[in-house]
């Protein structure tokens, strides 16, 4: 067991990396403390009430920008903080743990991709559209532009006002706009993708991290609930049937967490060196994360009973986001099919190397 709320940098078996990994851990912890403080402020009841009514929480968005969280991936000479991809994904995970109702991850990755293509991104929150897996943007009336990666391996941006989309809301009650296909990018607003992995892979790993964070929270809420709620003269936690369900939920949450972290490592280490390994690993991680949302939310609601099925308890903020996020950036069926295709293409003899070298390549840092 580690200390409450503490997340560490990845474990390295290489002793000589200890010093730098210690320093990295400190940097990450500082970043996460900042993120948690800003996200906590954005998780007050009135913020969620405004979101349900379709009002964009401007103040909190500004706080996120002012604390450098939007541009942290950009190099310092481009006005960013130049943090590791892993640090940014740890922030995404923290956003999940606070059910952050703002398009931070889309904007962060969108601005990063645009900057990499030598483009100046418009100020303000962005939507993100990828040719393969993502045709839904959050907050269509409040974003300034859509960052778009099209099928021709180009990335660019389109002003939000120039894009038509079907308006609706996701399971979490956040406004969304649904597109049929990526919008054409106006001349002068596009550039070549500077590096692999592909934008849809990057968005999928970020979404997996958010799912992992929300699951961590749901597990925490559930443990707290079953320890405190007394029925038949004893806490729910004392019933074996309850213990077994919590254990199942914890297993799914834990595996999604380590799968997401492992996929982040793969993306980080293959960035700029080709997409193949990261594509496999991230496809596995998002398939697993999306798939696990059912069991985790099912058990959380079962154990919370009626109070969990209300808006008086916080649980719904997290379970509703899992239902939205499991579909966002490719649902489990989409990614399972991708994984299946890669496995079948590799053939029986190539299946094991695919499984271990997806990691192996990621680990040679």
């Amino acid at each position, binding site marked *: 067991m580690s200390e409450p709320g503490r997340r560490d940098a990845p474990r390295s078996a290489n002793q000589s990396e200890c010093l730098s990994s210690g320093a990295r851990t400190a940097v990450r912890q500082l970043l996460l403390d900042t993120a948690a403080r800003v996200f906590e402020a954005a998780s007050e009841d009135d913020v969620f009430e405004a979101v349900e009514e379709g009002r964009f929480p401007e103040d909190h968005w500004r706080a996120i920008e002012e604390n450098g969280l939007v541009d942290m991936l950009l190099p310092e000479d481009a006005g960013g903080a130049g943090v590791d991809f892993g640090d940014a994904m740890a922030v995404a995970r923290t956003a999940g743990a606070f059910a952050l109702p703002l398009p931070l991850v889309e904007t962060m990755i969108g601005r990063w991709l645009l900057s990499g293509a030598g483009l100046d991104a418009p100020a303000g929150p962005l939507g993100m559209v990828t040719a393969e897996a993502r045709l839904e943007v959050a907050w269509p009336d409040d974003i300034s532009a859509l960052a778009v990666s099209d099928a021709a391996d180009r990335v660019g941006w389109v002003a939000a006002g120039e894009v038509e989309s079907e308006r609706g809301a996701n399971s979490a009650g956040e406004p969304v706009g649904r597109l049929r296909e990526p919008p054409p990018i106006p001349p002068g607003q596009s550039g070549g993708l500077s590096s692999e992995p592909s934008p849809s892979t990057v968005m999928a790993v970020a979404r997996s991290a958010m799912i992992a964070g929300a699951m961590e929270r749901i597990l925490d809420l559930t*443990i707290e609930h079953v320890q405190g709620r007394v029925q038949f003269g004893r806490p729910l936690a004392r019933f074996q049937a309850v213990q077994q369900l919590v254990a199942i939920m914890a297993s799914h949450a834990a595996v999604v967490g380590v799968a997401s972290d492992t996929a982040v490592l793969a993306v980080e280490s293959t960035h700029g060196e080709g997409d193949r390994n990261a594509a496999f690993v991230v496809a596995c991680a998002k398939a697993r994360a999306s798939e696990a949302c059912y069991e985790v939310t099912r058990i959380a609601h079962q154990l919370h009973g009626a109070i969990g099925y209300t808006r008086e308890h916080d649980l719904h903020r997290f379970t509703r986001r899992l239902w939205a996020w499991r579909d966002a950036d490719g649902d489990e069926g989409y990614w399972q099919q991708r994984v299946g295709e890669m496995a079948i293409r590799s053939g029986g003899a190539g299946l094991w190397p695919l499984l271990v070298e997806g990691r192996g390549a990621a680990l040679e840092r």
Partner: protein
Amino acid sequence: MKAPTVHLRFLPAALPEAAENLRSEVRVLLEETRAEGVWLADGLSWWGRNPALSRALGGAGFIGMTWPRQYGGSERSYLERYVVTEELLAACAPTAFHWFADRQIGPSILRYGTEEQKQRFLPPIARGELSFAVGMSEPDSGSDLASIRTRAERADGGWRLNGSKIWTSYAHEAEYCVALVRTEPKSDKRHAGMSQVIIDLKNSDGITVRPIIDLPGRHDFNEVFFEDTFVPDDCLLGNPGDGWAQVTSELAYERSGPERFLTNFHLLRALVDALDGSASPAARRGVGLLVSRLWALRAASVSVAAALEAGETPNVESALVKDLGTNFQQEVPEIVRRVVAHEGVSDRAVLDILHQVVLAAPSYTIQGGATEILRGIVARGLRLR
């Protein structure tokens, strides 16, 4: 609302280059011995017992890898052993001859044994020449291991054993068995008064081995009866009364290993071989479901292996990996069945393995800690009990 409490510790882990480099060595050895006819992948995976393959692996330094050189080991890291283990499993190599000694009995002897015991048993285990069985369960003690009744009573120069052990795999073939027995009568302290003894199965009087045929129709289970069986003093392992602590201390190694999710990897491999680019989207998703779960389980298992290597005792995390891993294994044949039916796969190789795996599947979630016990351990780790 503060940041959520982290209840379980699974850091993403890196396998060091030295471990990765061993992969090709294992693959070459397996390819060569298979070409020579030493072994064949008959679908039993690690449950298959092949003394010749174990000797070849021992000769190459792949048994007792983490043990000191003076006892026949090669002083490798636990992560290097992990890579060798998973390569053996992925190749469906029969390793039961040395498996139990390599995984749990050897490490116990190394940790609790006398100098004489280490010199006597560890080098031949590491050479792949000495096979051990594990005597834990009894007819009335399955999941409730602390209720065992087999007793060892003081005798001149040693102990007299009476009682029986059950589900003792390969007791009819192994040279030795390490058994957990009572050396003191039961008391209020459930876990006190037990000890581990090393029993010479081939050269002791008063031992009867009764075969038990398992569901698939194979003989690897046995019931082993002891009637005044003499165990000399130098075959007591560790201190009298410490048996419970000794057997439970190795559980993290036993539970989180890749054998908990790779036992029927050959079925998945055969299915992938039987499909091609014309496979339906549903078939691709079926394969992808299994491969993605397997990949994620391995990430969790490697994480636990790295924690063990770092000297931690991730017992809760290990129980969790075994629970998810064995449940995954159990679902593999069910999902493969659907793909096979949907795609009209008629490849004999797939159907034969599928048939075998369906019959073996109920055992996965029972052996080495039943699902309900493992979930109880996880629940305790979450402070629910």
